[in-house]
């Protein structure tokens, strides 16, 4: 039996087949669906942790206790989890630990396009890199084997194009159910208590392990040579391999399923068979530098760019320009010119909108954060002025407030982001006598990545009811005296509350509370515009809501797109936007 699966679904399926029983992750495009699909398999425990560091620590705990464990995150999430990563390399684990990392070349949904293969090298652990969904399934099983054989964490690296492409996967027999008797926890301080004296003993073990992994890389079935013509020898891994297969159909290939460590002998073997070695890899020259160190002449980043993801078209054009294949040099695909752009926008009815509109009216300098609400930076709202990494807003505003600027400053952060990494900088405001204002946009869900629960939701990934943690109570507990909870749709109160907080000399926090409109699917009748009363002031257009459109002599509201939140009516100074009367219809 075959089934079409995304790379992420196949990773989850492979984890299930490999007997992984504990999974922890934090959502992040393109990794999110791994943990979501894993959670649906029978007999597993899966959780969304508040951030990637916690997720990795949970998975490490499970692996220390002898279990097979999975941690999932996007590339920048591994930065957050880097601290436990580098030292779990020293301790190793008792069970198995697979870390799924999903990179995002071309920044489809990210703040940078870092190449996380460097993490495997820096932490001195193995990394596997599948090239399609079928491999993704198999490689998780191999990762578990490597982890158990070599006592090492293993990173399984995906990229957006693998995670979010779908292809045919062979279904396999259900894994045999194993009854596990509770065993005593194995105490082994020299291995697991990383005080300097112990860690010094572990470092040589890590170096020794890396040598063994490099030997394993020579014989593992995931690295292999595909014989072909004697002209070009292509080295590729991950989805780049697929593009290269289309562009160099007759060439000799070294397909690397293991991105780190690399197989020296296999690379020399390939070089001995061909006139020219070519590395096709996205982002950094990671494989290329290794080949160069072996003293083998190689073409790589002199032919293919180190920015953005590849496609077979891009690889083909670069290869033709470098004379590696015949073809028109400099031929660029004809792209449609001068069409109106269509960037993502805050949804109609999004409760983040009134806050940004208010901040725009108050001309505040807004230190922002990452989530759907980052779309508040887009015109016409244009009311967010920084977005660095998750949780940065609160530290940023505190730092900016130590430099005298003329503007009113404020931090704006989403609720999932707040629980991810906003709490420590919030404590810092109190602990260092800061006086900044923080607004938390509390829609009780992680909206951007597709509505995952977080510590404020009151429900776990597996559907269990748990306490929903109150941001207001948390702020008061750490010493905030000035805390207000507001509804974004009571717009007069929004403006007054923010102004009041701006005037305050003490640190203060506003929680703007309203559920995500996509999540609750709330729909009220859309309002109608009284064109006679409209004086075309443009206020309602400045809220940046897609159902509103400028027409000759006024504005219209598209009832098919409008969710009826009524915010446009509250910014109209002329009362020209009115609730629809019953006969008016509208969608319910």
């Amino acid at each position, binding site marked *: 039996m*075959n089934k*079409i699966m995304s790379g992420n679904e196949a990773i989850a399926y492979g984890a299930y087949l490999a007997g992984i029983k504990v999974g922890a992750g934090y959502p992040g*495009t*393109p990794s*999110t*669906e791994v943990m979501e699909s894993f959670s649906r398999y029978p007999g597993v425990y899966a959780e969304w942790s508040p951030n990637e560091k916690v997720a990795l620590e949970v998975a490490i705990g499970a692996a220390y206790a002898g279990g097979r464990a999975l941690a999932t995150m996007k590339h920048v999430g591994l930065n957050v989890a880097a601290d436990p990563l580098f030292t779990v390399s020293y301790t190793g684990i008792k069970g198995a630990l697979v870390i799924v990392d999903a990179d995002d070349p071309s920044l*489809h*949904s990210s703040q940078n396009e870092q190449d996380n293969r460097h993490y495997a090298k820096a932490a001195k652990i193995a990394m596997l890199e599948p090239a*399609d969904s079928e491999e993704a399934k198999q490689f998780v099983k191999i990762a578990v084997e490597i982890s158990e054989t070599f006592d090492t964490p293993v990173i399984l690296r995906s990229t957006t*194009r693998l995670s*979010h*492409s*779908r*292809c*045919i996967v062979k279904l396999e027999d259900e894994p045999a159910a194993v009854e596990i008797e509770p065993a005593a926890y194995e105490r082994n301080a020299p291995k697991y208590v990383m005080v300097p004296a112990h860690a010094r003993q572990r470092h040589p073990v890590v170096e020794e392990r890396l040598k063994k992994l490099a030997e394993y890389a020579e014989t593992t079935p995931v690295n292999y040579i595909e014989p072909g013509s004697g002209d070009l020898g292509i080295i590729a891994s991950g*989805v780049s391999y*697929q*593009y290269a*297969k*289309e562009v160099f159909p007759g060439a000799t290939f070294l397909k690397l399923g293991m991105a780190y460590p690399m197989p020296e002998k296999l690379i020399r073997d390939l070089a001995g068979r061909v006139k020219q070695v070519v590395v096709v890899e996205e982002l950094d020259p990671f494989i290329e530098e290794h080949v160069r160190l072996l003293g083998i002449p190689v073409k790589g980043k002199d032919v293919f760019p180190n920015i953005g993801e590849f*496609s*077979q*078209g891009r690889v*083909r054009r670069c290869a033709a320009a470098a004379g590696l294949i015949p073809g028109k040099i400099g031929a660029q*695909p*004809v*792209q*449609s010119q001068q*069409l*109106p*752009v*269509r*960037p*993502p*926008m*805050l*949804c109609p009815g999004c409760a983040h909108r009134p806050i940004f509109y208010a901040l725009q009216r108050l001309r505040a300098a807004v230190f922002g954060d990452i989530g*759907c609400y980052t*779309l508040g930076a*887009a*015109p*016409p709202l244009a009311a967010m002025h920084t977005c660095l990494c998750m949780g940065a807003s609160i530290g940023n505003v505190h730092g900016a407030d130590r430099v005298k600027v003329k503007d009113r400053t404020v931090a704006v952060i989403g609720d999932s982001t707040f629980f991810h990494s906003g709490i420590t900088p919030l404590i810092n405001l109190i602990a260092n006598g800061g006086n900044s204002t923080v607004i938390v946009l509390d829609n009780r869900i992680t909206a*951007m*990545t*597709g509505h995952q629960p977080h510590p404020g939701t009151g429900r776990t990934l597996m559907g269990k009811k748990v306490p929903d943690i109150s941001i207001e109570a948390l702020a008061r507990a750490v010493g905030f005296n000035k805390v207000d909870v507001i509804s974004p749709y009571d717009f007069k109160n929004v403006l007054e509350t923010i102004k009041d907080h701006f005037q305050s000399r003490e640190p203060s926090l506003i929680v703007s509370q309203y559920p995500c409109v996509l999540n609750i699917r709330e729909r009220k009748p859309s309002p109608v515009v009284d064109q006679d009363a409209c004086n075309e002031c443009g206020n309602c*257009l400045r809220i*940046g809501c*897609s159902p*509103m*459109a*400028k027409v000759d002599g006024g504005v219209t509201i598209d009832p*098919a*797109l409008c969710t009826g939140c009524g915010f446009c009516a509250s910014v109209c100074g002329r009362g020209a936007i009115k609730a629809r009367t019953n006969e008016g219809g509208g969608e319910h």
Partner: protein
Amino acid sequence: MKGVANIKRKYDFLFTGVGGQGTILASDIVSEVGMRCGYDVKKSEVHGMSQRGGAVESHVRWGEKVYSPLIEEGEADFLLAFEMLEAARWTQFVSAGTVALVNRHRILPPTVYLGQAKYPEEKEIEDILTGAGSKVVWIEGTARAVELGNPALAGVVLLGTLSKYFDEPLDVWENSLMNLVPEKFRDLNIKAFHAGREFQG
């Protein structure tokens, strides 16, 4: 165009639209049909930020053996555009022989509803596509979907029209569709699919 399935070895389908319009489901259905007909199938889709009303595209490829999940420029056999402006945005994938099935439906992008840019006329969109060599078929997808009670069915109407270009038995399409939509919406989806088959391809 009947009978093409036996002649050509590969099919590349490009789905374009606006985040939230259902291009992912429609492209899943076409992937499923391909697999059930014995093709190797790969598909690529967009998640994340763009799903909030941005321009989105999905690639589906059928072939004897498919390597890349992306279509190469100029190689699309079919363009299924869920929105008119998004039909014209991806012409680098279109060339002589591409059939463009375009849903006659406008969703205004921000620069247009703010009055800063003009939405192209239907004729301009058609000219852009025919200029790239494509044959353009206009489909009242959204209008028919609204008649059926749910504008979100527009994509399934397009799939109905698409199915007319293939010899593969109708029940492969119907079963793939039913396999991928929730049970309570199956009848409605089948109706929308057959509404699409009434359009002249």
